[in-house]
């Protein structure tokens, strides 16, 4: 026998490059880089520090929520409530601080709100077997309505004694002139990536998305983990809400309207599969970046803003198209 069993087993099936080229996230990164290069030459205004500062900061809000959404999508679920939850959380922070409480208490109240909403979504989905689409669609409506109730549908722009601290938290640039939200995004992305790759919890999330029945049979605590992922998703919306409040310096009840779709688009462009079982932290960030670069470039190139939706929608379909083509080839 020419080839022994051990040799067959030891043989590596994929090289580093073959794996890289088969990776949707890699191609999206290339697309982002090419777009940036093109824009740097085509326009005078793209590669200015001010514009880059704006882009990176604008990416962060969608990206941070997309990181939380990635957990949900990997389990095969969906969270449509994130935009409204972001708004409610911002409003809780604004109203609490406006009433004269410190920033610490405001943030605590916000995070408790986010976790409570996530736990509610997760319990209904995991223990009562509701479809995630329905539960979070309901929460989309409930959370925005509660934000209106909490603020009496007014704009809140005075945040009590810690007003300046909050603005610095969201709007400052404490390290090397990098906008604070960008730093938070990088830290959260690293944490997400670590959890997904190196923890038992992360492994179980992928298992649930791959085959929930198998995960249950092998003793994975499926229900608890499902509750946890919806809590993480709501928490990420809450964190984004806090940062965005500090950056904007005002909260209205239409904050985050339609954001859920941008967030889902970012995760899908970054390579997550809505059927579950696939997704990465870097993908969520890169997907959000591509959307923002498209949006920014259309403005700089002087293309009518009405075209934005077409280009972003096209990017979603194109990104998934690559994935489909790979699957067709594999099934041949």
């Amino acid at each position, binding site marked *: 026998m020419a080839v022994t069993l051990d040799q067959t087993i030891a043989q590596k099936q994929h090289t580093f490059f073959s794996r890289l080229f088969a990776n949707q996230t890699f191609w999206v990164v290339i697309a982002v880089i090419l777009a940036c290069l093109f824009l740097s030459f085509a326009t005078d205004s793209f590669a200015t520090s001010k514009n880059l500062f704006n882009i990176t900061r604008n990416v962060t809000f969608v990206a941070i929520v997309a990181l939380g959404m990635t957990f949900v999508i990997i389990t095969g679920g969906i969270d449509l409530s994130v935009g409204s939850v972001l708004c409610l959380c911002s409003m809780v922070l604004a109203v609490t601080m406006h009433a004269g409480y410190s920033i610490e208490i405001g943030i605590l109240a916000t995070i408790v709100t986010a976790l409570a909403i996530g736990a509610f979504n997760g319990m209904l989905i995991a223990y009562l077997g509701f479809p995630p689409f329905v539960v979070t669609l309901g929460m989309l409506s409930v959370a925005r309505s509660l934000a209106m109730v909490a603020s009496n549908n007014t704009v809140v722009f005075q945040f009590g004694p810690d007003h300046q601290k909050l603005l610095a938290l969201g709007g400052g640039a404490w390290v090397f002139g990098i906008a604070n939200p960008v730093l938070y995004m990088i830290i959260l992305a690293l944490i997400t990536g670590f959890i997904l790759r190196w923890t038992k919890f992360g*492994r179980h999330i992928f298992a649930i998305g791959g085959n929930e*029945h*198998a995960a249950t049979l092998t003793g994975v605590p499926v229900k608890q983990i499902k509750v946890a992922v919806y809590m993480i998703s709501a928490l990420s919306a809450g964190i984004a809400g806090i940062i965005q409040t500090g950056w904007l310096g005002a909260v209205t009840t239409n904050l985050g309207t339609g954001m859920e779709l941008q967030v889902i688009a970012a995760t899908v462009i970054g390579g997550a599969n809505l059927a579950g079982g696939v997704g990465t932290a870097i993908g969520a960030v890169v997907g959000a970046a591509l959307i923002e670069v498209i949006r920014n470039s259309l403005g700089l190139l002087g293309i009518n803003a009405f075209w934005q939706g077409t280009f972003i929608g096209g990017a979603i379909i194109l990104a998934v198209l690559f994935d489909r083509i790979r699957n067709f080839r594999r099934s041949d």
Partner: protein
Amino acid sequence: MSVLELANISKHFGAIQAVNDVSFTLEAGQVVGLMGDNGAGKSTLVKMIAGNFRPSHGTMQLEGKELVLHKPAEARQHGIEIVHQDLALCNNLTAAANVYLGRELRRGFGPLRILDYGAMYKRAGQLFAELKSETRPRDLVKQMSGGQRQAVAIARTMLSQAKIVLMDEPTAAISVRQVAEVLNLIRHLRDQGIAVVLISHRMPDVFDVADRVIVMRRGRKVADKKIASSSPEEVTGLITGAIEQVG
């Protein structure tokens, strides 16, 4: 002493009597073929041993000690492993990840314990080598053949010191060449002194690999005899009811 002894086990779901007064013993290093038509009670019986159901009547003894199971994890702690009919594999994970699903190895201390990829790949590789299966621990399960998938599911049962391995239709949905592979895996488990219960519809497989055959019909045990003293014709007769009962 037998590994497992079932005494007068019955299970009913409401008015339906799924298993009726069944007794038998399992010996270490023995393969028992469990045969019967659809609805004969094979799966229900095996699920009681695996901790999925609790018997309505009767007792089970593991190595002479009374065995009461409330959930599958408890059965596993007692060294009873099951290979499910659908194998319970996650296509999006690697072979090693599937072998260790639910009992991942970790290193580090306290709250900062990370997955020990190296150790899991290594041990999974050893198990596949022991099983003489061409399965690579780093490959994704979705790229694998039916026989390799069986090997992954079976390797799972070898992680801990299993005493009993229950296999539900392991050869139902795979090609002829892969069937031979799976039967070899079963012999391998037997040679390690594990008691194997093989639920199967396929007569040739049972006569090929089993030492004993138990036939069930409508919830009752109608035969329990050595393969050597039986024949496929007799077993077919017992399954269909043409032969009422033997032994």
